[in-house]
């Protein structure tokens, strides 16, 4: 083999370690949510969805930050590893914004009496979801994989510049509209047991995020190698199973 590739064994090992830690933390967190933490007084049982909702939002925005930084780095340094990290983070961003967008309305229906309220943070998450969705459409539709990576990185950078502006404008827009009667979740988190449960979940989902990030990164790099080898091998002799397709 004339090409030397950096070993992915470390990536796999760390992914497994973090994954085990995430599993343990989340199991502990589940136990806390269902058996240990007291029911919040004003909101009742439905408040418990916040232990999944709030940390998911945090992970979604963390993912977006990583996508933005790695995209900027990729445009600058052209290092495929940065693109692999960005796409791995973006995939999880899409998953975790989806979780936020599912758990938010579930809670909102009971707390606000409406499935959807244009609450600034929920609105921002929705727009973030659309930007992530565009990220993958753009990647898939580009004429060459190289272009796809570059274009996705451009969207990653532009999105990061735009998100604070969207946040400001949505806040401003909300301030012009009548507010719904909101049971403010912030007011209720003073209870130390609730705070502790939330912290365990924050830790658990953050660990899960990094475990999946590494696993996905390893898979992405491996996919690139397979592609390189396939192209190289294909020029010498077609693989037996691809004979029917060769032109």
């Amino acid at each position, binding site marked *: 083999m004339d090409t030397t590739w950096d070993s992915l064994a470390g990536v796999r090992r760390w992914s497994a370690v973090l994954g085990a830690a995430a599993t343990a933390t989340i199991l502990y967190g589940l136990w806390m949510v269902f058996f240990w933490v007291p029911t919040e007084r004003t909101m009742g049982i439905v408040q418990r969805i916040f232990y999944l909702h709030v940390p998911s939002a945090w992970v979604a925005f963390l993912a977006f930050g990583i996508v933005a930084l790695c995209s900027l780095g990729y445009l600058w340094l052209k290092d495929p590893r940065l693109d692999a990290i960005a796409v791995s983070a973006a995939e999880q961003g899409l998953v975790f914004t989806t979780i936020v967008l599912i758990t938010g309305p579930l809670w909102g229906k009971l707390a606000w009496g409406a499935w959807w309220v244009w609450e600034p943070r929920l609105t921002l998450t929705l727009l973030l979801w*659309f930007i992530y969705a*565009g990220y993958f459409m753009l990647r898939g539709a580009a004429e060459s994989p190289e272009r796809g990576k570059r*274009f996705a990185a*451009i*969207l990653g950078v532009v*999105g990061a510049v735009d998100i604070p502006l*969207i946040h400001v404008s949505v806040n401003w827009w909300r301030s012009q509209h009548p507010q719904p009667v909101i049971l403010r979740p912030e007011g209720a988190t003073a209870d130390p047991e609730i705070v502790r449960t939330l912290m365990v979940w924050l830790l658990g989902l953050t660990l899960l995020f990094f475990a999946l990030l590494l696993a996905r990164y390893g898979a992405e790099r491996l996919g690139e190698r397979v592609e390189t080898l396939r192209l190289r091998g294909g020029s010498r002799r077609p693989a037996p199973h691809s004979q029917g397709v060769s032109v």
Partner: protein
Amino acid sequence: MRGEPGASYLAQVWAVARKDLLLEARSRERLVAMATFAVLVAVVFSFSIDPTAVRARSIAGAMIWVTVLFAGTLGLGRSFALEREADALTGLMVAPVERGALFLGKWLANVVIVGAVEAVIFPAYALFFGLAWPAGSLPALLAVVFCATAGFLALGTLFAGVAAHTRMGETLLPILLLPLLIPVVIFASSATQRLLVGRPVAEVASQLRMLAAFGLIFLFTCTALFGSVLEE
């Protein structure tokens, strides 16, 4: 291309813009398509609004900016499609023009063309829905329209260049653009609406500031990023 080596940056910007505007002046295809589409949207809006339930005057700002964004996006798709045909983009790239100047030239041409379309949209809405802006609010309205259009087309020109190099092409453009343009939608339609109903000009100062900031930020960001669109 008139951008000789050593030609100043602004001269390069102008050379690119002039090329696009000359092409448009000769064919007028984008302008006619966008303006016709925009007026059609206004017509469709007037059929879809129940006048006994809602007064068009109360939602005119929203309708106008939805029309501007949709008509603008429709025309933007062609902004680079033309360069892709006969590989004119390669010619542009080997011309002694900086990438940033190339972007700003394309942006400037798009601002002029979409500005011309807006000059159709506003009177069309005024005609169909019986709207009249107070005379004193016109400078503020022009400032709002200019700043909003500048910001819209900074992102629009960048992603038109991106979308032109994808298989989905112009279909992808609105999906990428619309979420990013939410600030423009919010501030431009609110300012247009307030000026329409005769609120004092000072009341739209904050919207105008936000639109100007949005325009400047993305003009800078997109100019810097445009080089990455063209790289081979």
